[in-house]
């Protein structure tokens, strides 16, 4: 059966020879690095839940290529139900991990490529789709994690790729050979890159003929020669080095991001899915972005955790019966479930592409993501309001354990007599983690900029709404001749 367990996934990562740097030093063993490991554990959860009877209905699918049971993260959506289950899977995993579980981006890249390779072939008579399907079969059979790498470093924002003073600000082809191509550039903000077996590269913007060397898409093993990972920092990241079981907030899971440098990397032809077909770069971006904007269903699950933590904080503080606290909890739930509405709606209004793949409704996916750029911030604000200032002034776990001062903390930070001081500290640390610690990278700023910054969604909304029909409806009702 082509599905790995969580343990097999971890072991498979150990076999990779990734070139990873963090704090200026090479990380020889990313899997066991205390800063990186929680993110690996979050990805491992996608394997773990797929093995469980109580979650397999969402976490697994039947491959349209082989008929075998596969992890849904390697599946190509075959109907509306697949799209709905994807949204539901995001909420489930967000709630189970309280962070970014990193595997959606590869699924979104696979689905977008299943559509666009077919469309390129239809126009140009190429064989990208068959190459892609061969690759997909490999991914499904081995239950791999794919990093979907789209975001270039982009240089001067006013300039097109070919106009950049440094041509490497967008990843591009530097050499064409009989056996493949050589590429150079970098992809920024790559979530889960170091936990991935494969990296799927796509162009980052729509392109014109002058930029055709930048219109390239391909897949490589994550440890291919010339790929270098430079880990991003997260707020409060070094708390993971301190030991203990309190100050991290989320003791088990986290996310990570990296800058991925392609230093003249060779890509064999059978791994190339777009090569200078610049007129399809925009279509690939649009398709991937729509899927990935749907993927922010995960924030609903993380929101579930934060709302639960806020209710507990209110109870632990002894304030849960106050009417304004109850109202704030209602508002948090209203915002969170509104987010859920968006990710369900864009799935249920999906459609079939010529390739057979089902796409989300692009307008609704963009509306959903636009809400995601806002609502988690308000939910986080309300969580901090409910938690109180102690969530940022709390002394450390080591102080709590200190024979000299620990008893003062136990005494003065006791609130509700039915709850221990330590439990109160645990929940406050979790809220801190989600709203301004390591998990805030995923819950807040990633919600803002991940899958495209807010303006990107507004552009898509303006393109996709049917304004003529709206004006026609207005004219009809007020008596203006059509």
């Amino acid at each position: 059966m082509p599905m790995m367990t969580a343990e097999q996934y971890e072991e498979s990562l150990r076999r990779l020879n990734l070139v990873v740097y963090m704090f200026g030093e090479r990380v020889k063993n990313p899997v066991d690095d205390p800063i990186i490991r929680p993110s690996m554990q979050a990805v491992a959860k996608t394997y773990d839940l797929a093995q469980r009877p109580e979650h397999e209905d969402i976490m697994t699918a039947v491959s349209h290529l082989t008929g075998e049971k596969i992890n849904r993260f390697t599946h190509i959506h075959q109907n509306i139900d697949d799209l709905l289950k994807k949204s539901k899977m995001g909420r489930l995993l967000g709630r189970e991990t309280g962070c970014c579980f990193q595997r959606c981006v590869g699924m979104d890249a696979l689905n977008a490529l299943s559509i666009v390779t077919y469309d390129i072939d239809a126009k140009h008579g190429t064989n990208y789709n068959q190459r892609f399907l061969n690759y997909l079969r490999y991914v499904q059979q081995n239950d791999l994690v794919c990093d979907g790498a789209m975001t270039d470093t982009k240089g001067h924002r006013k300039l097109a790729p070919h106009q950049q003073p440094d041509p490497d600000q967008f990843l591009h082809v530097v050499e064409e050979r009989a056996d493949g191509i050589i590429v150079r550039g970098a992809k920024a903000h790559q979530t889960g890159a170091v936990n991935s077996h494969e990296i799927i590269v796509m162009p980052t913007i729509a392109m014109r003929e002058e930029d055709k060397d930048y219109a390239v898409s391909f897949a490589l093993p994550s440890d291919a020669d010339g790929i270098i990972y430079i880990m991003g920092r997260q707020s409060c990241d070094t708390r993971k080095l301190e030991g203990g079981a309190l100050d991290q907030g989320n003791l088990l899971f986290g996310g990570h991001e990296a800058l991925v440098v392609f230093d003249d990397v060779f890509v064999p032809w059978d791994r190339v899915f777009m090569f200078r077909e610049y007129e399809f770069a925009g279509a690939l971006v649009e398709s991937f972005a729509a899927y990935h904007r749907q993927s922010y269903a995960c924030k609903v699950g993380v929101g579930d955790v934060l709302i639960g933590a806020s209710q507990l904080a209110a109870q632990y503080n002894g304030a849960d019966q106050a009417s304004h606290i109850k109202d704030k909890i209602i508002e948090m739930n209203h915002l969170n479930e509104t987010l859920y509405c968006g990710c369900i709606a864009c799935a249920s209004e999906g459609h079939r592409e010529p390739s057979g793949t089902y796409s989300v409704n692009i307008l609704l996916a963009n509306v959903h993501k636009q809400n995601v750029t806002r609502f988690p911030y308000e939910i986080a604000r309300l969580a901090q309001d409910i938690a109180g200032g102690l969530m940022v002034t709390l002394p450390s776990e080591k102080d709590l354990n200190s024979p000299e001062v620990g008893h003062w903390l136990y005494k003065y930070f006791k609130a509700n007599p039915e709850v221990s001081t330590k439990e109160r500290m645990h929940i406050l640390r979790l809220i801190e983690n989600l709203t301004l610690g390591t998990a805030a990278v995923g819950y807040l700023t990633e919600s803002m900029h991940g899958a495209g910054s807010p303006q990107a969604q507004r552009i898509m909304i303006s393109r996709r709404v049917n304004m003529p029909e709206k004006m026609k409806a207005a004219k009809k009702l007020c008596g203006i001749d059509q």
Partner: protein
Amino acid sequence: MESINNAGPGKRLRIGIKYCGGCNPEYDRVAVVNRLVEDLAEEAEFLPASSPDLDLVLVVQGCRTACADLSSLNEAPLWIITGREQAENFRRAVKDKKIFEPGGLGGRAGRG
């Protein structure tokens, strides 16, 4: 033991368990099933829904959306629960040996 299934006297019911995906369940589905397994140990054995020769399948839905995919299940009758109260009804029906009576299984299940 009085026969309560179609397999003959003295035999425990073979009950398959089929869960929905559990995206946002309204109750702890696994805890409810574990309780049923414990309480009904004399009357039934619980197996994966893909097992052969099941007397029925208990479909454990996390909410009333009831989205579990039943298409791959065999022809065994279904008993669908979407909450703790319905789980209790199921437990009582098995205990009282009324699971296959009119108004029992037939009144609560279908094959979608």
